[in-house]
């Protein structure tokens, strides 16, 4: 019981940790997806570039949108942004803070996908093998222009008959992979340095406003959770009262229409109380039928 209450309170007060957890899970899922999907470059001149760049950029967009969808705070932010002013002023700083925190979290999984793609190298090799300069590679320099395009397009496919032991293919492959990994590591370094600087330098700029924005964005989040919780509790009590009223009214109707010698007042046992005057198969059937055909009105005054 206490443990549940603790978990409950933890989630209530620490939605940031929950969001971080979801962000981490999405990143892991994106890496797992990359490793489990079988990448197969078409090795055709017109299709390579589209396929390679498509695999590099389309999944990150989908992952970004997923990150926005799964983040509870995006709903909170949208509600805060679109609500009528009423008695409570709207603070744009809070909305901006929420927006930036949502975007930061949503960008992690796509960045991870792009970095993993670049470090692996297959996408770049597939996309840019046709754009290589054939002069630099012995086997391709001697072929005709049309053939060169075909051959370069087949570089990503190691198992092709023509390419199996071709040293020029390996050279092109290595060259592109080297570029791809360099790009990958550079992007990773830039992102980490940017994150480091942002975190270190942020206290130097307008810390007070930041603290306020963070406090009120947490507040809006918690307020909404508690409102939902209160509505649940209220609907439970409402339903309870409604059902009790219903049983009462059934009992009164039964008493009114039958001259049964009910002496329930005297020495009523606890069970007789729970029976609420319904003591007969027909009465129970009647009650259940009434519950379906004529639900009581939503009024417990």
């Amino acid at each position: 019981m206490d443990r549940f209450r603790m978990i409950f309170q933890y989630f209530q007060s620490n939605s940031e940790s929950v969001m971080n957890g979801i962000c981490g899970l999405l990143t892991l899922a994106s890496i797992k997806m990359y490793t489990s999907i079988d990448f197969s470059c078409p090795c055709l001149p017109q299709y390579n570039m589209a396929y390679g760049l498509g695999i590099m950029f389309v999944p990150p967009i989908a992952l970004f949108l997923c990150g926005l969808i799964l983040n509870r705070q995006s709903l909170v932010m949208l509600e805060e942004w679109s609500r009528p002013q009423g008695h409570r002023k709207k603070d744009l700083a809070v909305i901006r803070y929420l927006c930036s925190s949502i975007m930061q979290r949503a960008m992690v999984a796509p960045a991870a996908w792009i970095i993993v793609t670049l470090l692996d190298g297959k996408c770049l090799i597939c996309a840019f093998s046709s754009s290589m300069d054939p002069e630099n590679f012995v086997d391709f320099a001697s072929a005709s222009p049309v053939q060169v395009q075909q051959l370069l397009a087949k570089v990503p496919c190691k198992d092709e008959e023509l390419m199996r032991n071709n040293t020029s293919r390996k050279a092109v492959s290595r060259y592109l992979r080297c570029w791809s990994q360099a790009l990958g590591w550079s992007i990773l370094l830039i992102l980490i340095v940017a994150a480091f600087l942002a975190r270190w330098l942020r206290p130097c700029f307008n810390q007070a406003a930041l603290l306020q924005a963070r406090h009120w964005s947490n507040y809006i989040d918690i307020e909404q959770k508690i409102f939902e919780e209160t509505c649940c509790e209220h609907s439970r009590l409402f339903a309870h009262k409604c059902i009790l009223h219903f049983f009462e009214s059934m009992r009164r109707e039964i008493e009114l229409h039958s001259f049964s010698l009910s002496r329930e007042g005297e020495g009523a046992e606890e069970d007789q109380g729970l029976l609420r005057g319904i003591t007969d198969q027909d009465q129970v059937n009647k009650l259940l039928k009434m519950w379906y055909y004529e639900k009581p009105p939503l009024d417990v005054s």
Partner: protein
Amino acid sequence: MDKFRMIFQFFQSNQESFMSGICGIMALASTQIYSAFDFNCPCLPRYNLAYGLGILLVPPFILFLLGFVLNNNVSMLAEEWRRPQGQRGKDPAVLRYMFCSMAQRAMIAPVVWVSVTLLDGKCITCAFCTLVPVETLGNASHPSLSQGDMKRVLARIPCKEIYDGQELIANEVAVRYLRCISQALGWCFVLLMTMLAFLVRSLRPCFSQAAFLKSRYWSHYIDIERKLFDETCTEHARSFAKVCIQQFFEGMSADLVAAHCHLPRKAPEDAGEATEKLLGITDWDTMNMVLKSWHRCKPPLHLHPPALPSGNGWTGEGQPPVHPPVPRSEMAAYYSWV
């Protein structure tokens, strides 16, 4: 009871996390089913398309229906939809909300199945292998075959062991081509679905937030009310059964006393609770008679008030006739009035 209420409240108020969890589980289940399934392309011209598209489209439909079947709230929706109006108005917005939220959850497994199928590529390779552009990908110098023969050869592309058209078009080239198309379709599908979900989720607060809050509250209310009603009925049934059985034992005991024509021996004051609980049935024969009577002739579902003595002899039916016939006909009139 308190613990269940806490859990109930926790799930209700943290419904986002709960629903995300359920969605994740369904997505995983869908991927597992796909990987466990043994895909076997028939490699025959007319059957390939049917098989490939069948595997692509029929399981998602089944998973969608399963999503509805396994959802407990479907019966709640049906009940709310079909019930007569009575004293409580019906709100179509609430019904729409319930249906939409159920449909959204039921769509996850089919969407994941279609995505995984397309990204894997086997289905599209099987279904469309006869439509590969041989002119551009194949060997131009190969003597042309008739349409039928060409289709027969191309249909064997997915089955590497029996493929005999290597001179016409290399197997790897065709498979790579089809797989590339399949993966492109797959990623486009995933992007489309994610964008749709994003639009649905983000546009809703901008347009109908108040109506949404109302529908959500009342749909939760209907769910909670149904559960509480079931709970109250269960409690009532328990008490009913308890009193019914107690009255049965008392009736049996009183009848036995009357049959043997001696006064009920009042238990001494200090005999204790256990003796009272025996309800006057204190020997082997009596207990056997009680058990036989319980099996042969269960008491009617009609409890008489506790203070009323039932002095009639045991006729072997165990019926405690209490009410005079007039009120019974009043009850009958009551039903027909309604």
